[in-house]
C-alpha cells in the first residue's frame, strides 16, 4: 500500500466521519449524507486506481506525479474553506439568537 493512498484514506475517513456526525445530529439530510459518501468514496477509488486511469491524466494533460498532489491540495483547501464558512455561519446564527433574545427581553 503506498503512502499517498494511506494519507487519502485517512483523510477521507476523517471527512466522512464529520458528514456522518452531522447527519446523526440532523444537521444534514439523508440525501446530502449520501452525496458526501459518494464524493469521498470516489476520492478513494480514484486514488486506488490512479495508475489505471492514465488515459484520464493524458486527456487532462497531467503527466507529472506532483500534479496529483497539487490538485489534491486544491481540493483540500476548498474543503477547509467550506468548513470554515459553515463554522462562521454557525457562529453568526448563535450571535443572531443572542441579539434577538436581548431585543425581545428589552421590549418586555
Amino acid at each position, binding site marked *: 500500500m503506498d503512502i499517498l493512498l494511506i494519507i487519502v484514506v485517512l483523510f477521507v475517513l476523517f471527512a466522512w466521519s464529520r458528514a456522518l456526525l452531522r447527519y446523526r445530529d440532523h444537521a444534514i439530510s439523508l440525501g446530502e449524507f449520501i452525496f458526501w459518501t459518494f464524493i469521498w468514496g470516489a476520492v478513494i477509488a480514484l486514488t486506488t486506481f490512479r495508475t489505471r486511469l492514465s488515459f484520464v491524466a493524458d486527456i487532462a494533460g497531467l503527466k507529472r506525479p506532483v500534479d496529483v498532489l497539487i490538485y489534491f491540495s486544491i481540493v483540500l483547501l476548498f474543503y477547509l474553506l467550506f468548513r470554515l464558512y459553515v463554522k462562521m455561519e454557525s457562529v453568526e*446564527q448563535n*450571535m*443572531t439568537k443572542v*441579539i*434577538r433574545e436581548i431585543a*425581545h427581553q428589552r*421590549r418586555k
Partner: protein
Amino acid sequence: MKQGMKQGMNQSKNQQRVFIVIPAYNEEKSIGAVLQGLRKYGYQNLIVINDCSHDNTAARAKQAGAMVLNHIINIGQGAALKTGIDYAVQEGADIIVTFDADGQHDPQDIPMLLEPILKGKAEITLGSRFLKSTSQVPLLKRIVLKGGILFTWLCSGIMLTDTHNGLRAMSRKAAQQLQLRQNRMAHASEIIDEIHRKRIPFKEVPVTIRYTKYAMAKGQSVFNAFDIAFKMIIRKLVR
C-alpha cells in the same frame, strides 16, 4: 366595489389581528411618514425593528407609536424581519405583513395581500411589482430582478414574477413554519425556498413600488445579487 372590499377588509381586520413588521436601519427621514401612512389606513400593531441604526430611527418610530425592538448589533434585514415576525407571533398576531421602512411600499396594497389569506386561499401572499403597471422599475434593476426570478426558479422550482419584494403577508401558521437563517438580503430568496420546501400555499399579488430618490439611494446595490446567489448555493449545500 373597491370601497366595499375596503370595508370588508376593515371588518376582517377587526376580527384578525394584523401586525406590520418593519425592519429599519438609518431610516429617521422616512420612518415617521411610513408609520403615519399605515396608521391612516387603520393598522395599529406596528413593529419596528431598529437594526442598530446610527441615527434617530428608534426615537422617531416610538414617537409615531410603534413597538420598537432594538438590535444591539447591526445584523441585517433578514435577521430583523425574523425578530419582528417572532415578536408578532408572540404578541398574538393572526396575520403578519412585512413592509419596508424607506417609503417604497404603499399601505393601500395591504388589503389585497390580506384577502387571499382571509379567504383561506393562501397562507402567504407575495407582492409583485411586475403584475402592476404603476411600478416604474429602472432598467438595470429590472434586469437584475428578472435574473433573480430565473435563479429562484432554478434553486427552488417556483416561477414567480418578482422575487425580491419586501411587501408580503403571511398567516400565523406560515410564520411559524418559516425557518429563516439568512441574516442579510438573501432572506427574500430563502422565504421562497421555504415556501417550496414546506409546501406552503402562496399567491402573488400586484403591488406598487415607489422608486423615490431616497429609496433608490437607500436601496441595495445590484452587485448584492451575486452575494445572494452565492449564499443560496451554500444554503443548498449545507442545509
